């Protein structure tokens, strides 16, 4: 079988690409190969699923109708080999598909730590709906859960488990949680809220060894000799781009698949987007994987346009995260822990429960963190992305009423008169 557009992966990037291709070309044949239980669910919602707040319906970012309405041939299988010379892929189920253009929207995979004394099956990860279901099934008998990793995924998992009434121990190697995305003060505020919710947050600690305690209970030995019991152990130490398929096909790969601004790989008819690809990070001025939902959606759309023959360029993004766990609304973006001299503005309002911090370099915003009051985050991100010199209104940036009115008329109109 041959398809003009073959998309591998059925998640954020794939959905965007389908939408973009169809907006340009109503007639072209499109196939999507997906290997999870369902295509089109929202991965970031698995904590809500595990917490019992959303059922499968609520998880669906696009319903099954979406695919039929867009005349997409859905193929539930996995691509195991890409042959760019013949423009054909092999499927795990034995089939072969030919393509005109192909998009690799295959995402990332969880990194797992090396742990002694435990079988692989006993070390859970938390990146797919299936993971959430597997963990959920165990919760009827597991009461103490240890989570390794204090990043976004680990924290979201800790919250979901707390909501299910579990006793959670969160173990983070770095001296504080979210050490990449937050500054020290913001990390401490969040840790305080986690502790208040009953999570035992152990920072600057690693699991040195795991022993079986009897039944399915594990005894974790920490690097300082302390011990903790847990009925379930989940590693959430990060994800990495799933590059092996591309590597084997001879597609250029750095930490992720390297692409140009049209999301084209080193092989012109093969595109890549989302978590598996490297994109331009405008705050750091380099290309790197940014495993973020809006990036997968945005880059998938650009890939789709170009595949359908409409030229479009992806303008890049930066590390940017919105989160709302443990009653701490946080939005953070760009460079938040600068090493070289930068100007840092900050404001803490303990009574109002808010904290804001903005990092400036040569008159430009290069990073910020808002906690509590977050509604102006989008404007800060805009000023950062557009590289707008903020020196003239620097004094206003942290004001609770900071908004478009503090900006020069030209910038203001760009936003208001869209």
């Amino acid at each position: 079988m041959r398809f003009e557009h073959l998309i591998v992966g059925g998640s954020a990037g794939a959905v965007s690409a389908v939408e973009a291709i169809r907006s340009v070309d109503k007639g072209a044949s499109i196939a999507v190969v997906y290997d999870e239980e369902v295509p089109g669910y929202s991965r970031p919602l698995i904590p809500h699923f595990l917490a019992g707040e959303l059922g499968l319906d609520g998880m669906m970012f696009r319903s099954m109708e979406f695919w039929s309405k867009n005349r997409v041939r859905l193929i539930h299988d996995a691509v195991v080999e890409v042959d760019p010379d013949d423009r054909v892929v092999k499927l795990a189920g034995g089939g072969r598909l030919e393509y005109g253009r192909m998009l690799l929207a295959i995402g990332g995979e969880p990194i797992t730590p090396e742990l002694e004394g435990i079988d692989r099956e006993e070390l859970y990860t938390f990146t797919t709906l299936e993971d959430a279901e597997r963990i959920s099934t165990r919760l009827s008998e597991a009461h103490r859960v240890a989570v390794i990793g204090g990043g976004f995924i680990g924290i979201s998992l800790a919250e979901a488990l707390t909501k299910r009434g579990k006793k959670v121990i969160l173990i983070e190697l770095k001296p504080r949680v979210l050490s990449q995305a937050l500054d020290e003060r913001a990390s401490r505020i969040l840790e305080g809220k986690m502790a208040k919710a009953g999570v035992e947050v152990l920072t600057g600690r690693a699991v040195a060894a795991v022993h079986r305690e009897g039944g399915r209970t594990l005894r974790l030995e920490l690097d300082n000799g302390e011990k903790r019991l847990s009925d379930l152990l989940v590693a959430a130490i990060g994800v990495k781009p799933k590059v092996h398929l591309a590597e084997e096909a001879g597609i250029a790969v750095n930490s992720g698949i390297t692409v140009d601004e049209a999301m084209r790989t080193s092989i012109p008819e093969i595109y890549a987007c989302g978590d598996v690809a490297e994109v331009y990070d405008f705050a750091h001025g380099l290309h790197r994987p940014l495993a973020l939902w809006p990036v997968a959606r945005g880059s998938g759309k650009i890939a789709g346009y170009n595949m359908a023959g409409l030229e479009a360029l992806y303008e890049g993004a930066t590390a940017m995260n919105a989160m709302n766990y443990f009653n701490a609304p946080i939005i953070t973006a760009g460079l938040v822990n600068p090493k070289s001299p930068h100007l840092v503005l900050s404001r803490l309002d303990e009574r109002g429960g808010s904290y804001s911090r903005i990092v400036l370099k040569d008159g430009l915003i290069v990073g910020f963190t808002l906690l509590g009051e977050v509604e102006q985050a989008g404007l800060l991100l805009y000023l950062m992305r557009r590289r707008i010199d903020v020196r003239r209104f620097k004094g206003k940036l942290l004001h609770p009423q900071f908004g478009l009115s503090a900006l020069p008329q030209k910038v203001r109109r760009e936003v208001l008169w869209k």
Partner: protein
Amino acid sequence: MKKVYANERLCMGCGLCEVYCLVAHSSSKDVVKAYLKERPKPVSRIRKEVHRSLSFAVQCRHCDEAPCVEACLTGAMNVDEKSGAVTHDPERCVECLTCVMVCPAGAIKVDRKLGVVAKCDLCATSGSPVCVEKCPNQALVYAEAPP
């Protein structure tokens, strides 16, 4: 498409648009009840800004290729195929704040009590934005292009 535009020269910063917006999005539709009785308190989807002698009101810009629609984790933010307006479905919203992160106008309000975000819907049910109707100075217009 038709949007609400603010005329900076006519706005006197009275804030009535915020009041009427809040009431229009309340369940009682009564100003006293909406402000004093309704819990959770309804949220205004328009924001009056004042800076020195400048004032105007801001709400969702209903952007083409809207960044919030692209960013939304759940599919709660969408584009109405007929009108082109950006719509928000609170039933699907999980208050993840991803849309807030990418809205350059700061036009998405966080309703922490209800656990959702809220934004201008152009008064879709009545078909005529109440902020425009009630602005005493005609500083808000509902038009195809900026004033």
